[in-house]
């Protein structure tokens, strides 16, 4: 700008002219300064630890003892151990059940709530919607605490079915922690799917009504296709949040009884900090990173499109 104004530019080279064009956004060095804090933090506390964990997983590092001081690379030793570790495969199965059960429950209950709330009496809508949202807002530690109290022997549910000594956390531990997880995530699904439902153009539904489509046909042909991206995004987020829901299960069962609710983050924690095998715990953590990355990439593909 200044060169043009001062009139010193008589016949600039074409390339030079392009360089000084002011009508296009160009790279500004201040962008780098603005990005540095956020990306500095992400590099130091996310990418570097992630890379470091890959290495840690292939070492013999322990929390205490001689291998805590003098430790080193042990190659595929931990991988071989992982392959034959029945507790790990059991934990993977438990994690799978926990995630799949949570997804199914959250989507079904969340959709039903979202769709019922639209048609219900206003006062009921406020009360029920409020309860479900409060359950969602509750921090995982508190949710775990209140579910532990309600499902243990002598708790609310046992009292309600009339046999106070039934301990649901002993008899059906995996089912109960999955239900607790569904309970604590449904509010989120309800809000997101409710917003998506309200965005369905009423003309589309009215046209279907005019053409005598049944309720089921309207749901399958109009609501479902329009809701698809939202549902997929909710599924992936529930999967990711459930995968990492250490707090809820740790409070309720600590992975027990036995290994009945030992999802991967708990098993990783247990290996690293109860059995002192920091390296092996890190390796199990890496398995979680791989699983989370798959869900994460799918999520980016769904969410990035909209």
């Amino acid at each position, binding site marked *: 700008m200044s060169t043009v104004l001062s009139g010193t530019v008589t016949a600039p080279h074409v390339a030079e002219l392009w360089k000084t064009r002011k009508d296009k956004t160009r790279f500004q060095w201040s962008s780098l300064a*603005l*990005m540095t804090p956020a990306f500095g933090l992400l590099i130091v506390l996310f990418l570097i630890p992630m890379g470091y964990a890959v290495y840690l997983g292939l070492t013999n590092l322990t929390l205490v003892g001689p291998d805590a001081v003098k430790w080193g690379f042990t190659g595929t030793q931990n991988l071989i151990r992982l392959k034959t570790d029945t507790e790990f495969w059991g934990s993977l199965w438990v994690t799978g059940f926990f995630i799949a059960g949570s997804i199914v429950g959250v989507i079904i209950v969340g959709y039903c*709530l979202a769709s019922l709330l639209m048609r219900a009496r206003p006062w009921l809508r406020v009360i029920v919607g409020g309860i479900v949202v409060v359950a969602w807002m509750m*921090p*995982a530690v508190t949710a775990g605490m209140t579910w532990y*109290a309600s499902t243990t022997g002598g708790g609310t549910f046992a009292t309600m079915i009339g046999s106070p000594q039934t301990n649901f956390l002993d008899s059906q531990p995996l089912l109960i922690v999955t239900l607790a997880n569904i309970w604590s995530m449904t509010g989120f699904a309800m809000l997101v799917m409710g917003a998506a439902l309200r965005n369905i153009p009423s003309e589309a539904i009215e046209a279907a009504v005019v053409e005598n489509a049944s309720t089921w046909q309207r749901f399958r042909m109009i609501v479902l296709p329009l809701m698809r991206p939202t549902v997929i995004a909710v599924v992936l987020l529930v999967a990711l949040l459930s995968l990492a829901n250490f707090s809820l299960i*740790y409070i309720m069962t600590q992975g027990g009884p036995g290994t009945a609710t030992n999802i991967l983050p708990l098993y990783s924690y247990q290996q690293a900090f109860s059995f002192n095998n920091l390296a092996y715990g890190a390796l199990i953590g890496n398995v979680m990173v791989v699983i989370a990355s798959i869900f*994460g990439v799918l999520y980016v593909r769904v969410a990035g499109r909209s």
Partner: protein
Amino acid sequence: MTRRLDAVAGETLGPVSATQVTSQLPPENRATQRTMLRSVTINTVLGAIGLLFITPMLWLLLASVDSHASFGLAWPHFSLINFKHVLKGSLLHSLFNSVVLAVISTAIASVAGVFAAYSFSRRKFPLKGGLLLFILFSSGVPLTIMVIPVYEIFSRFGFLSLLPTAVFLSVTSLPFEVYLMKNFIDAVPIDLEEAARMERASTWQILRRVVVPLAMPGIAAAAIFGFVNAWGSFIVPLILISSNSQQPAPIALYTFLTLPKTEYGNMAAYSLVFCVPVFVLYAASSRLFREGFLLGGGVKG
């Protein structure tokens, strides 16, 4: 409605089944009846789901004000003594630690986040698309699963304390905050910024005087997300904070379960106290979202 239909049926037709009545009524009445039936069903089912959802909370609500609480469901001997018990000594100190942890973590994530969000929204730079996808990716992936390598790094540098933990917690909420704030800054009319640039405002001045005030609802919502995230975090302080006196409230809450004699009432009261800031902040943020996008009026003509 059903009663009225029965009355009609009784007068004219004697005892007949509902379907017969329906088929003999004029079509608009039939439609009304169906709608009524449906409305009753909808409200009943919804009420039932609501009851199922509130059941696990009952213990929390009742035991917290019960001086003789247990895990059982009983009508409370009403008293506020539990709250008095938990709001002093080391339990109160843990709440204070939680506040420090959450405030520091929120401050770091919000400041770093607003800078990054602004450049994602307004600037052009190499790899922008890829970096934005990376932000979106890490906003979905729970970064707390990095806690073991971070523990190893922190223990090497002697960082196993409150402040470094707050920094790590800020990173776990940073990607989502950047993404959220970017969307809000996108909605700030660029004309306002150009007007400021005309008057030779620096980038810093534009950020402080134009972008931040106008995107404040979004920044506040992102900050609330960061605060709630750090406030509720359990595994991160459990692993990364070595000193007992620096442990935040979630760990204190957990220790209730490890006591030889369970203090049911105190446990419930402390849980509730711990929830209060979260509920207040969520309520505030939903209001922010509602007020969110009123920025169009800032540009005339």
